[in-house]
């Protein structure tokens, strides 16, 4: 036996070595792509965030300012204000989208023409956000917009949907929820299909009504799906740019400005690339922290989901 292992050992090691090389060779294109399009920009942005740079001169000529951009932003009322707007937007859109999508998915799942319903609700997902923002802008018009026309029918006062600073952000949230329901609904529907019918049959025999079935079978068994939607929803919502930018340009001051919009404006209008990069990194930290928090909360509820 010993002789056998002695002769096989080097051969195995050689094979392993050859396989390792081949593995790296196969990984090389992906690693190269990842390095060029992810690692390099991230490192570059990190360096930029410590400089006072307007992009018009070479970065090497830009003055180093350490982490002063970060301390400026964390004490800047404007940045803290847009952070607050984005937090409200993220919490509202993610929670409303998931709750409504869940209810609709359950209703449509067993309804007649379910494919047609899914198609109708999914249509906004494939529509560009800028187009959605423009069309909803017309619906929100104070004089001849659809929503105020409806309010007038009921004798109610018109609402300045996009120009009243107390209302504008919520108007955009309504649009975002409408636009996002279809995608979430489709994923929840896939989750619903994976719940065995036996559970519902057994629950019915035990006398459970539709609401008990929903809260004790559907929701718990959909938890991994809901975890996925919550995590990805928050990541997307924190980065939102297009809808607020399209719809909120007439909103007063910065009542609907989000962090991404602030970063964009700081970079390309104020030409402060360093401050904008620092803002982007702070946004990354917030998203990272928020995602960890969500995973922790779900774990505490016994849901491990996607590991």
């Amino acid at each position, binding site marked *: 036996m010993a002789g056998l292992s002695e002769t096989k050992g080097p051969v195995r090691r050689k094979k392993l070595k050859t396989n390792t090389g081949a593995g790296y060779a196969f990984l090389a294109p992906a690693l190269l792509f990842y390095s060029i399009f992810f690692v390099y920009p991230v490192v570059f942005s990190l360096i930029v965030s410590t400089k006072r740079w307007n992009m018009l001169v070479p970065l090497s000529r830009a003055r180093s300012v350490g982490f002063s951009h970060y301390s400026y932003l964390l004490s800047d009322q404007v940045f803290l204000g847009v952070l607050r707007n984005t937090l409200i937007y993220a919490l509202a859109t993610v929670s409303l989208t998931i709750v409504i999508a869940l209810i609709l998915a359950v209703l449509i799942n067993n309804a007649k023409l379910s494919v047609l319903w899914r198609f109708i609700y999914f249509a906004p997902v494939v529509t560009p956000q800028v187009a959605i923002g423009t069309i909803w802008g017309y619906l929100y018009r104070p*004089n001849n917009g659809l929503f105020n026309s409806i309010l007038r029918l009921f004798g109610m006062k*018109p609402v300045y949907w996009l120009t009243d600073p107390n209302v504008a952000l919520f108007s955009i949230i309504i649009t975002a929820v409408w636009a996002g329901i279809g995608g979430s609904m489709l994923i929840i529907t896939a989750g619903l299909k994976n719940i065995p019918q036996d559970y519902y049959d057994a629950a019915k025999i035990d006398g459970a009504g539709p609401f008990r079935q929903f809260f004790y079978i559907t929701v718990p068994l959909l938890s991994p799906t809901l975890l996925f939607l919550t995590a990805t929803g928050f990541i997307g919502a924190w980065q939102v740019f297009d809808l607020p930018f399209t719809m909120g340009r007439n909103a007063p001051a910065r009542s609907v400005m989000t962090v991404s919009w602030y970063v964009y404006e700081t970079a390309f209008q104020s030409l402060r690339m360093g401050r904008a990069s620092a803002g982007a990194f702070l946004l990354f930290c917030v998203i990272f922290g928020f995602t960890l928090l969500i995973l922790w909360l779900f774990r505490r509820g016994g849901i491990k989901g996607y590991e």
Partner: protein
Amino acid sequence: MKRSLVLLAVVLCVLLSFSGFGKTKLIFAVHWSDYQVEGVKDENGNVVVKGLKQYIEEYQKLNPNVEIEIQSVPFDEYLKRILISHTSGVIADIYVLYSLWGVQLVDSGILDEVPKDVVSKVKSDFVKAAVDGATIDKAIWGVPVEVANYALVYNKKLLQEAGFNEPPKTWDELVAMAPKLTKRNPDGTVAQYGFAFLSGWDSAVVHPYLALLYSNGGKPFKDDFTECLLTSKEAIEALEAELKLFKNGATDPAASVWNFPTGKVAMMIMAPWYETALKLGFKDEYEATVGVAPIPYLKKPATVGYTWFIAVDSASKNKKAAWDFIRWMTLQDAGGFTRMGELMAKNIGSIPPNKKDIAFFKEELNDLYTSAFVKELENTYQEPNIAQGQEIKTILMREIIEAWNGRKTAEQALNDAKKQIDKILEEFYK
């Protein structure tokens, strides 16, 4: 074999030089729309009004060794185009630049020094507002190609319906007239605005305010830009003058100057380039409807203006060729006028800043719309060329809108603007 390879190389070189490879190539970046670049064409595709392209073709015929490529970028993307091109190293040789961006471009060494003969021509041949626009730190950095200012544009029919035969001359008259021109729906929403501002666009917010500020005898900054003066008595009064229109119900933050062509706005403060949109909006009724007058003043007639100037990139490999083209296009006499003046007056619909062009294109500039703007050039204060001009403009816009919405008083809004702007000035001027 060696001999035939050398022969092949020589033939290739000759062919390449004949095919234009040896030409001096210039890239000319502009923010103009298609018809301004390609020319206005009739139904058969024939050019009826020349665009930039036709002038360039003419120049290329006269200078066969020069090839000029036009790169047209929308206004919103234009500054980004300059930034990104410098980062990537693919620059344009010639730019048409908004004066507000000038300081940063000059401070960053982006613009080439203007040849002395060009500087003296600019000083002698162009209107003062335009020369001020192209001047940064007491030096001229390009040739002005367009000067724009603001005036009161009003709907003659709506004014007559309300019993007014003349537009207001003073701001107090405007404040008194505007509510009488406002009509409301039964639910309280405004069906017709006596006066309209526009909330979402910095120029539409800041420029009318600056016009009132100058009219009230104030100014936004100290001359050396070390301090913002927006908390001065004159500055606060100017914003309070605007707020009177919100308080007396003549306007609200939802109003929009873009609704003027629908006949739902009686008065607004607007620039010369809006003429085409008004003609398209009112069609046959244009002349009977649209009227233009100086901005109603507080203490003295004043308006604000801005300039676009043509400049050469300091990193251009063909600076001489670029300046030669600029001389030909903007300074050289083409029969009593300059080519750029012709392009501005006939195609783009803007006021050419060269005095010779203003005198020559009387027909184009003396129409019912543009003539008022031309006359107002003498009362035009150039928007200050200041470092971080765009950032400062955005800050001021936001604070003015806060006041429009009643979230701050004029004094609070301008105090907050001053705090933010002074921080920037401290960074760049102290």
